[in-house]
């Protein structure tokens, strides 16, 4: 983009008009506002949330202190996000490859648009669909998993009668993650140097071998960061989980039973209405924990992207 860059202002600029000064000041102010807003997020969450770390014991029931209260929630958050990613990542890579290398060129753009539509559907509608349509539809599948695979701890059962399980929530989350990871992976796949691909083809590689030899090595860091951004989305998603899961504070790997751990976000959403000020502080404190976790994940993703870009420009 350096071609279109404006030339830097000369140091010995003779006239500075008041209009210039005001306009530049406004622009700088806007940038500072963003900094202030983000600092505000930390500060206000901390001010309101810190009392939640040491609230009266009965607030944390059935746990007794903050960390044993938030522990199962963190576990549930990570479990739901991991289930979602395990389902979503293979599909995203497949769809991204489909758009960048397999689909006929004329339909690739409309298809990419359709996948982006998945991202445009509001999360509450996914929750509605997950709770009312997907959960009942998954009941036979859950029974089948229990009958045939119950030796795996994930499917230990007893199978849910409502279908509102961690597996269902994970699938809904996966559908919400797919457009994000697909969009980024697709961009990276499409940027593979044409010459690498043609060289592989010229050496007699089939299309799949070309993708393995030329596209995947080039796109690895991009795909990793796409997955991490998807993870960030899955960790922070609220409504879909809150509307699908009926939660109890347990730590279990069981994906198909009726007792499921809540996630941090869904716990906040479903307990908010009847919260006393003390409880409110506790919930805000859990929000702070969630913020820290997603911040770390996103930060790692950006770092991977940055490293990848440096490698490419080398």
């Amino acid at each position: 983009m350096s071609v279109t860059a404006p030339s830097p202002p000369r140091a010995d600029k003779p006239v500075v008009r008041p209009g210039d000064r005001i306009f530049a000041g406004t622009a700088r102010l806007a940038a500072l506002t963003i900094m202030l807003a983000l600092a505000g997020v930390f500060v206000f969450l901390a001010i309101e949330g810190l009392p939640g770390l040491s609230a009266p014991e009965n607030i944390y029931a059935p746990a007794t202190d903050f960390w044993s209260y938030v522990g199962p929630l963190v576990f549930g958050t990570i479990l739901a996000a991991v289930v979602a990613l395990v389902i979503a990542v293979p599909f995203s890579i497949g769809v991204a490859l489909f758009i960048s290398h397999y689909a006929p060129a004329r339909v690739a753009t409309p298809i990419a648009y359709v996948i982006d539509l998945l991202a445009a559907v509001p999360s509450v509608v996914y929750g509605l669909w997950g709770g009312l349509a997907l959960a009942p539809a998954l009941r036979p599948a859950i029974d089948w998993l229990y009958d045939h695979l119950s030796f795996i701890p994930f499917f230990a059962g007893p199978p849910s009668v409502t279908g509102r399980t961690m597996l269902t929530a994970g699938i809904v989350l996966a559908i919400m993650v797919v457009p994000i990871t697909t969009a980024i992976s697709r961009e990276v796949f499409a940027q593979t140097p044409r010459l690498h691909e043609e060289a592989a083809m010229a050496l007699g590689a089939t299309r799949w071998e070309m993708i393995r030899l030329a596209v995947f090595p080039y796109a690895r860091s991009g795909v990793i960061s796409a997955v991490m951004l998807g993870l960030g989305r899955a960790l922070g998603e609220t409504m879909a989980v809150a509307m699908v899961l009926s939660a109890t504070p347990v730590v279990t790997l069981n994906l198909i039973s009726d007792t499921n751990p809540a996630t941090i976000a869904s716990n906040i959403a479903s307990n908010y209405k009847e919260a006393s000020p003390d409880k409110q502080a506790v919930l805000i404190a859990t929000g702070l924990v969630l913020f820290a976790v997603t911040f770390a994940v996103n930060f790692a993703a950006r770092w991977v992207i940055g490293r990848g870009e440096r490698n490419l420009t080398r």
Partner: protein
Amino acid sequence: MSTTTPLEPDSFAITANLAQPRLPKWALLLVAVLALGVAGLVTLLLGWSPYAGLVLAIALAAVGLPLWSLLLEGRRSAADRFATSLVWAAFGVVLVPLVWLIWLVVKNGIGVINGEFLTYDMRNVVGAGGGIYHALWGTILITLAAAIISIPIGLFTAIYLVEYGRGSRLARVTTFLVDVMTGIPSIVAGLFALSLFVLIFGPAIRIGFGGAVALSLLMIPTVVRSSEEMLRLVPSDLREASYALGIPKWRTVVKVVLPTALGGIITGVVLAISRVIGETAPLLVVAGATDSVNFNLFEGRMMTLPVYIFSQYSSPGVVPLGQEGDPPGYARAWGAALVLIAIVMVLNLVARIIGAYFAPKTERRR
């Protein structure tokens, strides 16, 4: 290839491979028909549901073609064909939830939407009836307020990043912070707005304006990103021509740079609005829920469409005695979902049209 050149055995293998038989063009069709037939037979004999039959047919075709290829063409071609069928299957599977969801929302929602649904609120409604009037207005007002807050901040930040702050420390920090802001979970944005207003007004505060603040926190990074990208696309020739005429920098930005990038900026803003208009969690936390119309952003709880869907879903009421079927709240939730999706899709479409109409006449990658 002439026989006088000494050839290594490997090259013979390659030439031999080239002569190997390939699957005919109609192989895919044949396998698909066979798979459908076998799956149909199994489905009929075992009494499965048609969906299970379809899954079986696709699985059979996805395995059958590579198997045939393995027998006829060898391992490498078989792997290639298998990967191709996996990629196509992945695409097909991802389409299923989208089609299913849209179809369900339209099917269940279209019967609910009528004049009463759009013009009545939920005050004193027990059982069926009532509507989304209050939620519709809440969504419009809160989203509008969020847009009014975030468009100037986002746009000016983008102008700063592109026109003024190039390479400065503040610009680098701002770019990083915008990245961080993109990753803020929506519920954390809601909690932030809540903490802010609780600190000012006391713990029981729930106002629509708080929702607008939370939404703008989610909207600003999108606006900054898209505007920044569009401003960078403006050729520097235009700026230099303007400077050469002695026009001050700020007037150059206002009169030359912004109008050139206007289409892209509007597209970005509309997409950002369509993104935040469906946000539920922050509004649930800070704007609350109510059954009546409230036009005042600064006082009292305010209903919005996403929160309306959530509350109709989580407390749907009871089925009247002696009747079968779903509780009345579910129907209202589907109706509101249809309205919400329609709004989002229209906004998306408008953004694409504006974007296509004003698209800069430069070559860009897909």
